[in-house]
């Protein structure tokens, strides 16, 4: 990414191509959003190279889950970060996706290559249902948060009562042999690239939403709903779109999760601990930012796994301790997350670049 930059005196005299390339690079650095996007792609690239250095399936497994958590974090960020809605029981969408993919695979022998994208549909429908109910009855803020939690509990109980979905025991995918067509591999490396593909889709959609009018409307709703409505923003419409988008993306995440772990059960995918686990990444990374969920996932998942590896033989609960402490620490001291920390150095860099640009013109 970082080609060595020619100095300015050289630039002016050297060929015009180098100048243009340097301008292109500078244009990214001058724009905080684009810098974050570039950082996201850089991280994806580096993770993509990681199988060259990592052999252990255990470590690769951690990398895969880190990528997945970053992806689900991006999904949450559309409703929770951009539109500012208190979506606490986010995992219901993830669970819907997981069940869709596994039902299609186990009962209908439909390959996960179709099953994972198909997981978007039921999840998005659930998102639309949540939007319909909460908007129709005007549930906001804390009531909305409690509603999403209650929904999670109810769905967990309902799912554990449906024999078609494996009931309380859940469902598992029998090993199908090494097969590209059925997305079944002995090695973990292909799963990593599928997860990275998901993350790339997530980054692109997330950024496109942020830069579009849609994203601006969502942010307007977050900042001041009444003012946004007064300016003619259709609150219900954009909240619904945000919820459906988040739900659809999370559903795909759930679909991949179940193919990768080959197992799903109601207490897990409708449970508060896993829900918190998925929430942590966008929160500590910086909600409402472009790269935040990715940085957050990079920060929490490997740390949690390391500590769990050191303790888990004799002690339970280490994961919960870390997630709890991370959430509390960031809410008390760094509510804007890691990305918020990076913003100031970037501003300095930006003003430095601008000054340089001025002096160049002279």
């Amino acid at each position, binding site marked *: 990414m970082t080609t060595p930059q020619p100095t300015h005196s050289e630039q002016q005299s050297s060929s015009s191509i180098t100048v243009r390339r340097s301008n292109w690079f500078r244009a990214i650095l001058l724009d905080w959003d684009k810098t974050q996007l570039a950082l996201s792609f850089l991280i994806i690239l580096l993770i993509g190279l990681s199988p060259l250095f990592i052999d252990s399936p255990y470590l690769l497994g951690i990398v895969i889950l880190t990528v997945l958590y970053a992806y689900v974090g991006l999904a949450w960020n559309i409703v*929770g970060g951009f539109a*500012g809605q*208190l979506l*606490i029981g986010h995992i219901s969408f993830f669970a819907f996706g997981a069940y869709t993919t596994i039902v299609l695979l186990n009962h209908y022998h439909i390959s996960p290559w179709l099953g994972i994208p198909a997981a978007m549909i039921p999840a998005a429908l659930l998102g639309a249902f949540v939007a319909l*109910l909460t908007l*129709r*009855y*005007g*549930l906001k*803020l*804390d*009531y909305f*948060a*409690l*509603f999403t*939690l*209650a*929904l999670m*509990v*109810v769905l967990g*109980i*309902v799912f*554990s*009562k449906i024999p078609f979905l494996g009931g309380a025991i859940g469902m598992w995918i029998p090993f199908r042999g090494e097969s590209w067509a059925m997305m079944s591999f002995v090695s973990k490396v292909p799963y990593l690239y599928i997860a990275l593909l998901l993350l790339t889709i997530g980054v692109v959609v997330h950024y496109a939403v942020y830069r579009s009018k849609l994203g601006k409307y969502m942010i307007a709703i977050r900042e001041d709903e009444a003012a946004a409505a007064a300016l003619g923003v259709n609150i219900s419409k954009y909240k619904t779109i945000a919820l459906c988008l988040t739900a659809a993306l999370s559903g795909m995440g759930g679909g991949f999760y179940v193919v990768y772990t080959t197992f799903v059960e109601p207490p897990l995918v409708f449970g*508060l*601990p896993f829900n*918190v686990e998925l*929430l942590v990444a966008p*929160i500590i990374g910086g*909600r409402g930012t472009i790269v935040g969920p990715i940085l957050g996932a990079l920060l929490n998942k490997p740390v949690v796994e390391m500590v769990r590896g050191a303790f888990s033989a004799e*002690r*339970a*609960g*280490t*994961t*919960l*301790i*870390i*997630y*709890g*402490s*991370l*959430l*509390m620490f960031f*809410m*008390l001291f760094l*509510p804007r997350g890691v990305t918020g920390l990076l913003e100031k150095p970037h501003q300095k860099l930006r003003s430095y670049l601008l000054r340089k640009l001025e002096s160049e013109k002279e």
Partner: protein
Amino acid sequence: MPIEILAQTLVNGLFLGGIYALVAMGLTLIYGVMIIINFAHAEFLMIGMYVSFWAFTLFGIHPYMAIILATVILFLFGALIQRGLIEPVLKAPLLNQILLTLGLSTLIMGLAQFFWRAEPRSILIPFASSSLRVGDLILNWPRLIAFIASIVLTIGLYFFLKKTKTGKAIRACSQNRVAAQLTGVNVRKIYMLTFGIGAALTGIAGVLISPNYPMTPTIGQTFSITAFVVVVLGTMGNFVGAFIGGLIIGVAEAFGGLYLGSDVRQVVSMGIFILVLLLRPQGLFGRMI
């Protein structure tokens, strides 16, 4: 269905509701005064249960004597949490507050699993299964005592808030923080006190149910969302409403368990919850404290 079974179910529901009411009263008191949604609240119940367990196992203290211990421990614990964690975020956005208490809940649960192990424990005293027979009804003694205690505590809290100077100060803070401060109420102290009382009430509930319920570090989760159901049903911030709401939910769950099977009884309370949230989010009663 025979009338005895219905009567027995009603009694069981009321007893369960008494416990819900105790947990919810602490939660609603804290909400009413500080307008903060405390997701860590049910962890106080879990701690109360473990206080009772350790007091009994290590020192042979009877669970009902452990009430004093649990009250003191949880009062101090609650007051410290308020000062150290809640006070700094009182003016922060709602999501920050919720995530903070969610983090606290996760942390406490994790610590309990780490130090006290995840498997269920119970207090083995013969008293736990003793019961009183009234006609055809079987009244389990610990549950009966817990029920009576919840009524006594509700009445006690009511008079504390209505009649004492401190209680009036708490109500003043709940009505208008600034005005209370202007009349000389030390708001920060009152907040700590309120949080302490809320935690202690829930801790007492934990001790009261410790003879009957096998305890695990995640038991708070079972009660956490139910406590919110009760609080919303009885109007957030109204603790008499919380008491009545607790009884309603307890009875609803008992009958739900009778007709649908005990593992799905939570669907009944969650169904009521969603209906109340959608149709009457202000709860059954007006706001009063």
